[in-house]
């Protein structure tokens, strides 16, 4: 049987005296969309960065596609990273490259596509996130929402099996946010992509995720469907739900 794409056990991470994650256990199944919620500073973004090896855990294990990433050499880690897309909170576009060059960046380095094929793929990726013009603009010349969409196109460039989204809808208008949500679901429907979506947006999480995991003070407070959360008697969960309503 194929192992779950993401398996995390007893994951701990501290910054100085501050314990951010205090022993997280988490399994995300193939094709599942998991939303991770929690207040600011509860380690949601840190969790994503640990999953892709951008930060090192203090303790615990992370298995991506069956491989423990702690034991991987840099080359092996990079091979794993090619299978994982990452959308950063502010897009993290390379500000010395145009929009098209940003999306082409991973393709140029990890594929043998011809210039014309690469250009075609870049345009298709940008079209899939709702961008059909201004490809030669610089990141500083476009809006925050557009930057996020370009970042998403870049995250999807290598056809990843897993995509990690860090606040994909934050700062977006409701229509664009809904489009991003639909795109996350479309990735699952068309390519069975596994997604973890860090968000503050309970409404969005309800609509596009299969399961919601709520972090509080470095621990998992609750994990389940939106209905499970609604049944919870925990005042923190109730407050989150009421604020989102």
């Amino acid at each position, binding site marked *: 049987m194929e192992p779950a794409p993401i398996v995390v056990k007893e994951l701990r991470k501290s*910054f100085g005296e*501050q314990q*951010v994650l205090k022993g997280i256990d988490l399994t995300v199944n193939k094709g599942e969309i998991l939303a991770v919620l929690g207040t600011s*500073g509860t380690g949601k973004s840190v969790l994503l960065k640990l999953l892709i090896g*951008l930060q090192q855990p203090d303790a615990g294990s992370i298995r991506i596609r069956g491989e423990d990433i702690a034991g991987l050499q840099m080359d092996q880690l990079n091979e794993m990273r090619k299978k*994982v897309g990452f959308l950063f909170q502010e897009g993290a*576009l*390379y500000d010395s490259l145009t929009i098209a060059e940003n999306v082409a*960046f*991973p393709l140029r380095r990890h594929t043998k596509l011809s210039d014309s094929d690469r250009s075609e793929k870049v345009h298709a990726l940008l079209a899939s996130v709702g961008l059909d013009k201004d490809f030669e603009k610089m990141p500083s010349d476009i809006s925050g929402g557009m930057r996020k969409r370009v970042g998403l196109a870049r995250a999807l460039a290598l056809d990843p099996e897993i995509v990690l989204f860090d606040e994909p809808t934050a700062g977006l208008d409701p229509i664009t946010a809904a489009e991003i949500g639909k795109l996350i679901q479309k990735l699952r429907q068309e390519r069975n992509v596994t997604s973890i979506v860090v968000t503050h947006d309970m409404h969005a999480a309800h609509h596009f995720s299969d399961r919601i995991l709520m972090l509080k003070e470095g621990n998992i407070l609750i994990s389940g469907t939106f209905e499970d959360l609604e049944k919870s008697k925990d005042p923190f969960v109730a407050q989150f739900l009421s604020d989102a309503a």
Partner: protein
Amino acid sequence: MATPVSAATTPVQPSPDPLTLAIEWFGELGVFCSRVAKSLFTLPFEWSEFIHQLDAAGSKSLPLVALAGAATGVVLSLQSRASLTRFGAKSMLPAMIVFSIIKEMGPIITGLVASGRIGAGIGAELGSMRVTEQIDAMEASAVNPYRFLAATRILACIVVLPLLTLAADAAGILMGWVSNTLTEPISLQLFINRGLSGVSFSDFLPPTIKTAVYGLIIGTISCFQGMRTRGGTEGVGRSATSSVVLSSLFIIVADVVLVRFILVFFPA
């Protein structure tokens, strides 16, 4: 990345002493250098980025370096004329200007000017990339930032510093002649012939080549300071400043050591 540590909840910690900080800094610099060195032996080499950096560090620094060299030539000429005349050695002025410029003034002026122009640029650029998660995004795209960002910039600095030194030397000698000839007309050919009459291969090449070491220092320190930036835009400013200050400091120290080496291997 948003720092996950809340200021309100973080206990106040005593600041580490300067010695501990220095040891930590050198330790991190060692790790950084080993990663960059390792990345140099991993294919493919980022040629297009390297060429872009040659342009950024080289041709864009050329006017400033040439201007600094020219000013040095003028000042040497103005300052030395009276002294040499007093000792009846006025005819030695061309040789004095050429010797001073090619042996020490040109290289050190180029190193210090480049540490300001190139070092600040690299420190600020990589610092900005760090705080806006662009370096994280590069790693997440399975691209080694030590190879793509650091190795290309360090190699570009190593290559361009000797070339910039040649430009500074040429501008210094030329403007030394201009300054001299305004007071006492002399042909450029005669000025250069007199200036170069006592100059040997060992007077010219080692001081010029030693600036490759300055390039190594500027590239390494600036990339290191930039890539370890923390703390938003304020941190970017700190990285740019520290890149210049530390590069200049290490260049001055390296200059003393390298001059001693040159004197050992190429005795006057």
